[in-house]
């Protein structure tokens, strides 16, 4: 297929995944800040939402401080934030439109309908309830797009590049949450704090839609080291770093097989996966969670660059 087509598919999927991620961060943060103050919230949860989104620099250039309204405006609607939900959906739609022919009609309708409907949401007039509905709608858009790609696309390189875009963005998103919240994720040997931390942990789980999954997997109350284990190493959890890399390696292998040639992308992805599967949570805590996550984010970015060089813009 055309390199440009692969590039657009990859980025359409990435942007939709990012929109979904932002919706979940906003949703979880709104919930956390709704807790009574007696639970002793120390920091500013809205600051941490901005940090998790990965666009803190852009935010503080525009606003004096992080609160519900500035963060909501910036992450959801701001035309100046290139990664706001609104921009993610518009860019995804533009990418999709440029490669209409590579999408199935169902995928196109999912993204084009979203783009048409987006204009009907009035950011200014939205109260909390309407905003919550908006976030649900954003999640539904990503679901509809990914679901229709899964149900309707031919299993060929177009599908594989779409899956790569989703998986690499998802790995980045999970890692960013961990990067911001690493200080509340402590090993089993440490003394853990009170109820505040509990809400921090459940918020993390909500941000990756994994609260229910947690209970099914561990069958015990929420423990910080298990939260870290679920998000980093657990292969059953679709947003864990390991699971994302299994997806990346699998689809890169399918591409290599179809094209009859392996390259740097296959090597970089399988090296990262090997490191994840060969690690135990104790080792990660031993060498430092923060260092581990920073290293992972850098590796994940390197894979993005490698895929681009090998396939998307040779």
């Amino acid at each position, binding site marked *: *297929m*055309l*390199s*440009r*087509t*692969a590039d657009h598919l990859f980025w359409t999927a990435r942007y939709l995944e990012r929109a979904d991620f932002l919706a979940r961060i906003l949703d979880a943060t709104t919930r956390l800040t709704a807790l009574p103050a007696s639970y002793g919230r120390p920091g500013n949860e809205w600051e941490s939402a901005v940090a998790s989104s990965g666009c803190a620099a852009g935010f503080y250039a525009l606003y004096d401080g992080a609160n519900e309204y500035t963060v909501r405006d910036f992450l959801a609607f701001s035309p100046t934030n290139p990664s706001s939900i609104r921009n993610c959906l518009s860019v995804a739609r*533009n990418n999709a*439109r*440029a*490669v*209409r*022919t590579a999408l199935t*009609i169902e995928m*196109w*309708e999912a993204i*084009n*309908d979203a783009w*048409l409907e987006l204009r009907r949401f009035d950011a200014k007039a939205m109260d909390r309830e309407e905003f919550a509905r908006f976030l649900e709608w954003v999640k539904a858009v990503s679901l509809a797009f990914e679901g229709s790609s899964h149900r309707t696309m031919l299993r060929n*390189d177009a599908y594989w*590049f779409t899956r790569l875009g989703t998986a690499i963005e998802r790995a980045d998103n999970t890692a960013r949450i961990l990067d911001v919240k690493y200080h509340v994720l402590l090993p089993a040997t440490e003394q853990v704090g009170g109820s505040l931390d509990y809400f921090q942990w459940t918020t993390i789980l909500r941000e990756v839609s994994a609260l229910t999954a947690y209970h099914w997997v561990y069958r015990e109350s929420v423990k910080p080291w298990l939260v870290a284990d679920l998000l980093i190493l657990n292969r059953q959890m679709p947003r864990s770093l390991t699971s994302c890399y299994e997806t990346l390696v699998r689809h890169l292998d399918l*591409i290599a097989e179809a*094209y009859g*040639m392996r390259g740097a992308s296959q090597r970089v992805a399988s090296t990262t996966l090997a490191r994840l599967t060969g690690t135990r949570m104790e080792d990660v805590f031993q060498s430092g969670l923060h260092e581990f996550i920073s290293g992972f984010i850098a590796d994940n970015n390197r894979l993005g660059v490698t895929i681009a060089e090998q*396939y*998307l813009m*040779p």
Partner: protein
Amino acid sequence: MATAFDEMTGVPGATEVREAYVTLKRWLETTPRHLLDTRRSQAELFFRRIGITFAVYGEVEASERLIPFDIIPRVLLKREWEILERGLKQRVTALNRFLADIYGPRECLRAGVLPEDLVYRNPCFRLEMAGVKVPHDIYAHIAGIDVVRVDADTFYVLEDNVRTPSGVSYMLENREVMLRLFPELFEEHRVAPVEDYPDALLASLRSVAPAGAGRDPTVVLLTPGQYNSAFYEHSFLADKLGVELVEGPDLFVRDDVVCMRTTEGAKRVDVIYRRIDDDFLDPLVFRPDSVLGVAGLMSAYEAGNVTLANAVGTGVADDKAVYSYMPEIVRFFTGEEPILKNVPTWRCREREALAYVLDRLDELVVKEVNGSGGYGMLIGPHASRQEREQFRRKLRHAPDGFIAQPTLALSTCPTFVAEGMAPRHVDLRPFVLTGADGCRVVPGGLTRVALKEGSLVVNSSQGGGTKDTWVLDA
């Protein structure tokens, strides 16, 4: 201006109905109005959802607009269509021979069929093409011939579009939406299908692949990109054809061979169905500032390693001054009398014609020789005195740039407008394909309708709409 011929009743307001419309008229009279209204909004929703939009240059906010679609089809009988079809094939055959001749032996110029300077001084004449041999001598692989009707028996050709004619996606999508919304109408009418147009187009394109292309030539569709007004059509056609939709930067030329950049490396391209104008094709030969084209493309083309459809330099043949010589061109190249009429045309470059035109500005239509899309045009009977005086000055200043024609009473067709059903003027653009095995016309075409009462301008950029076009079998 004479009273317009109405396609349904013959004479406007008459109670009798022409044969083609008998069943349709009964259906229109018996179907409740609210049902028709529901269907109209469903049609609009359909077009918006599939994203069939067009951009209007110079309008920022409405950068993606729908062309209004009218649910009442325009109906032709098979015997009417057969005359049109023969006439269209004859005309396009003549156009192709004319182009092969002016870029080859130039016999028609020696024989004085038309003045030499109309060719040589034509801005669309490409000297680069002189002596270049194109596969099977075909230049206009895809032609859109605009036809208007003035009475039961008479069709006039208004314009020949042989550069990059657009609109065929509307022909196909209009039929698609009609089939979805009014299946019962198709049970009662035997409507000739148009759905095989993409297959016919692909076959034509493959048939003109360069000799070295092998048995399975690679065809691509070259688009200026998604900000072009016809981008929807480009992506629609590429999809239906099953070929890659490429932009200039996706292609490169190495050793006079055109390749596209793919995820598996470079892949050779044999036939380019290009939807960008000559000027932008190759920055090394034409406009150096073009970022839409491919450097080296012309050199690969002249080396015979790639086929461009349509060929470079076809614009000479859809010039309005050359148009006025089409009857002579048809006679010269086919040895037959033209089946389709030309609108009588005064060439303002001729002194007597100019005087005639200046005397009758209030009854004639004056057009710029190189204008298109309904711009740069004076419709005398509808123009203000001021507009007419403006054109009088333009005509005196540069008469060569203009032709004039009588104001034709374009036929009308019943159309839904705000007040209900009313007659509106229509034209018809059938699409003629030419490949190594000859000419083909899909039965139908794009009917454009001027939605404003009394208006004769059907162009979508100026408030025109479209209709499905039916050719009834038997």
